């Protein structure tokens, strides 16, 4: 058993009785509002006037355990895995647990954010404590009723047991009494070997609603008197609104109003179809207010930035100039990726009702607190007057970190003084910005006569990319002389975080480049990396911000599971990456089918510490691999005169079922506290695939999407 420190137990845990009796505990864990149609209980019903809680676990006398889930759920499966952690320590009967999506409430919850694969590592211990505390209070209540020592009672599957006298009581029967027990200042957490839920494959708590088509998503929100709205925005980045003629649009049946604000022309009406039709009847003129950039401009800009003298130094170890001067061999290569759209299947949308007495917001957002704050500023009202209810998110991939569409909805509702649901069409979504930035890297490696990498240089150039390097990641720490720099071009094209920001492409470029270096050093690619890790371990250079042994662990496991280098007729490529606190190594198997190289299988070895939900975790890794593969292979967003040239799935390609190889997932079982999985499986995939295709074809793929590269033609 693990002892838990007593500090701040009181501040972190509060207790109250529910209106109808029963135990309720608050604990620090994020929450969001009940989705419009699915939830039975709401925060207010649970809170019974006491608003000082952080989050809630309640047990009703009829033995239903309700666990509030505070974080936005977008497919990362947090709505299932968080309650599992609470239920584990509570020793709850999982079949009697009801999960309720909570609303934004900064008084109750911390970090109500989905992003950075951060929720599980942030909340792991506090969720366990919440469950364990309630369990202890239930045991106390039972011991008191039975007049026995609390040390002689135990729990199992939602019951408190006194084995000596063969007595048992359900949590529901004990809930009211337990609510009167003092909150313990110390609780013991389970030993991992006693876990009954954690590590099991538990099905998604929203399965029934999803497979029967119940309203769950922002786009499904409907409120009495609500109007539908679409917005015509400038057709290119770098343009602004000049004039609007809305006469024809206003004449379309069902249109209630056409409103202009900022650079937006909003059409509001009684149905989605009619407002979209009216939008097509708008006559809008725009004028340039900035440069209207094209992809050809970016290609030129990249070359200038990589050749230029100006760059920001991100890390410098040793003396690279001397190392490269003395090198027996120097390898140089450049890698480039395009802009990408996030394209979650549910396009952007939000419901807003701005009334004199307050503001009601409902919809899909990864950062509800920031969105509410921004709306408060925009409308010049106190955040406390704004409620924000979270729906399930139909995907996010980083796009819904940005609340631009929430602000649009709120501003529009405040202007027309009616509740509205703003809908972005797929075309709005794909042409509307916040893209994964386009980036080009130049790598240089210096080898000595023995094939040791004695020098390493990376310069990253990006369009609105911020720093497109991760200067403290591998191979930093393993190379004596190292220089990492970045340089950025500021553009009117808007960019943002895209699943595994920066590393979604950097990992590919780096891992493909290291494959080139290993080849030049005449070393096995895995052996080459292991040697670097050994060097970092025995003679580290500068700060090392990743765990060498954990990285080595996934490398070894991937090699073993993929039968590395021992398969006849299979060309294998290797890649490993550390991101968002987790370690993932991958081996791609390429075979020749009908004379063409085909990706047959990808083996993934993952160290995310303890696996909370095996079903969710397995799929999270598989989905990440498919995401990484699909975008490396197919997806491409280009610009002409400031406008995106792709607008929908007919000209922007996403991976489909037939293009997906088998994906095997292997988890390291090391008992370390869990880290996130929403992102870490994606970054290594492109590198493993490119390196395997190189083995099969002898051609290096350095630019994405691969499908457009001449190296893949005629093979």
């Amino acid at each position, binding site marked *: 058993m693990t002892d838990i420190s007593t500090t701040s137990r009181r501040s972190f845990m509060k207790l109250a009785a529910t209106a109808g009796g029963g135990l309720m505990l608050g604990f620090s864990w994020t929450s969001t509002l009940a989705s419009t149609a699915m939830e039975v209980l709401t925060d207010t019903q649970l809170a019974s006037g006491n608003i000082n809680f952080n989050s809630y676990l309640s047990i009703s006398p009829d033995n239903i355990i309700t666990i509030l889930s505070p974080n936005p759920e977008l*497919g990362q499966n947090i709505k299932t895995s968080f309650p599992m952690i609470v239920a584990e320590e509570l020793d709850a009967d999982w079949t009697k647990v009801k999960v309720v999506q909570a609303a934004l409430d900064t008084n109750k919850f911390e970090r109500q954010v989905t992003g950075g694969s951060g929720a599980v590592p942030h909340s792991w211990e506090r969720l366990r404590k919440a469950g364990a505390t309630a369990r202890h209070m239930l045991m106390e209540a039972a011991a008191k009723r039975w007049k026995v020592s609390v040390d002689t009672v135990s729990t199992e599957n939602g019951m408190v047991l006194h084995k000596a006298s063969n007595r048992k009581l359900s949590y529901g029967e004990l809930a009211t009494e337990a609510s009167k027990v003092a909150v313990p200042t110390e609780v013991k957490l389970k030993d991992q070997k006693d876990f009954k839920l954690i590590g099991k494959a538990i099905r998604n708590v929203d399965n029934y609603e999803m497979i*029967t*088509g119940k309203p769950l998503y922002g786009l499904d929100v409907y409120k009495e008197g609500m109007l539908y709205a679409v917005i015509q925005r400038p057709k290119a980045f770098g343009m602004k609104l000049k004039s609007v003629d809305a006469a024809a649009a206003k004449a379309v*049946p069902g249109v209630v109003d056409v409103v202009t604000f900022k650079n937006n022309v909003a059409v509001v009406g009684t149905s989605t179809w009619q407002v979209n039709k009216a939008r097509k009847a708008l006559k809008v003129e725009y004028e340039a207010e900035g440069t209207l950039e094209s992809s050809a401009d970016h290609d030129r800009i990249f070359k200038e930035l990589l050749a230029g003298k100006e760059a920001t130094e991100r890390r410098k170890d040793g003396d690279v100039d001397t190392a490269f001067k003395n090198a027996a061999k120097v390898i140089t290569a450049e890698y480039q990726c395009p802009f990408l759209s996030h*394209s979650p299947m549910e396009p952007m949308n939000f419901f807003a009702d701005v009334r004199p007495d307050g503001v009601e917001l409902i919809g899909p957002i990864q950062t509800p607190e920031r969105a509410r704050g921004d709306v408060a500023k925009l409308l010049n009202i106190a955040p406390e007057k704004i409620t924000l209810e979270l729906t*399930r998110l139909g995907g996010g991939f980083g796009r819904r970190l940005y609340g631009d569409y929430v602000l649009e909805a709120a501003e529009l509702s405040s202007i027309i003084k009616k509740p509205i649901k703003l809908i972005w069409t797929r075309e709005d979504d794909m042409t509307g910005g916040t893209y994964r930035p386009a980036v080009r890297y130049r790598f240089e490696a210096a080898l000595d006569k023995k094939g040791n990498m004695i020098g390493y240089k990376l310069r990253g150039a990006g369009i609105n990319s911020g720093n497109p390097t991760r200067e403290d990641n591998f191979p930093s720490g393993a190379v004596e002389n190292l220089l990492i720099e970045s340089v950025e071009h500021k553009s009117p094209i808007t960019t943002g975080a895209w699943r595994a920001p920066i590393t979604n492409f950097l990992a590919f470029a780096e891992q493909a480049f290291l494959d080139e270096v290993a080849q030049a050093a005449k070393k096995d690619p895995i052996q080459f990396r292991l040697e670097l890790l050994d060097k970092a371990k025995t003679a580290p250079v500068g700060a090392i911000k990743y765990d060498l042994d954990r990285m080595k662990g996934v490398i070894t496991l991937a090699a073993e599971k993929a039968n590395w280098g021992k398969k006849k007729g299979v060309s294998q490529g290797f890649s490993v990456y550390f991101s968002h606190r987790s370690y993932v190594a991958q081996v791609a198997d390429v075979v020749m089918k009908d004379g063409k190289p085909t990706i047959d299988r990808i083996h993934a070895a993952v160290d995310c510490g303890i696996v909370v939900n095996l079903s969710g975790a397995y799929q*999270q890794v598989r*989905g990440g691999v498919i995401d990484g593969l699909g975008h490396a292979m197919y997806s491409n967003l280009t610009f002409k005169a400031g406008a995106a040239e792709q607008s929908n799935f007919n000209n922007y390609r996403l991976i489909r*079922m037939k293009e*997906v190889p088998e994906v095997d997932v292997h988890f390291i079982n090391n008992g370390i506290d869990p880290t996130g999985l929403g992102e870490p499986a994606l970054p290594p995939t492109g590198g493993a695939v490119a390196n395997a295709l190189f083995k099969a074809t002898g051609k290096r793929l350095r630019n994405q999407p691969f499908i457009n590269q001449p190296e893949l033609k005629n093979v």
Partner: protein
Amino acid sequence: MAKYKLQINGRAYEADVEPDTPLLWVLRDNLGLVGTKYGCGIAQCGACTVHVNGNPMRSCVYPVSAAANATITTIEGLETNGKLHAVQQAWDKVDVAQCGYCQAGQIMTATAFLSKNPNPTEAEIETAMNGNICRCGTYHRIREAVALAATKLN
């Protein structure tokens, strides 16, 4: 505007809409059947798939005027007498969904496919399901669930 009588999930509905309104938006905005999803609006992603006279149909490009005399089934109508369709059961058992947004369309495509080909090969499943995009990448589980449902339907 014109009034259309529609037969959906064994019930009669009426909608007063423009004749060119896609069935998708009639279902969602007029009838409150929001299980059918909007994904692309141009019949590329399959999120809006419904059955029209038993055939899979992209409701985002299917005008209501064409649906007037048809028998329509949406995701809300797959359950019979409170029992989930074998395909829905398989989706739960295999735990297919991540974000879940595309899954209604996937299920409608799969049910229509299995009603015509109850004993498919893996390649046939992939061909049938290839028109439906899942951005989360649940393709392996979709394939597995379709295969599992086929064994239950036989």
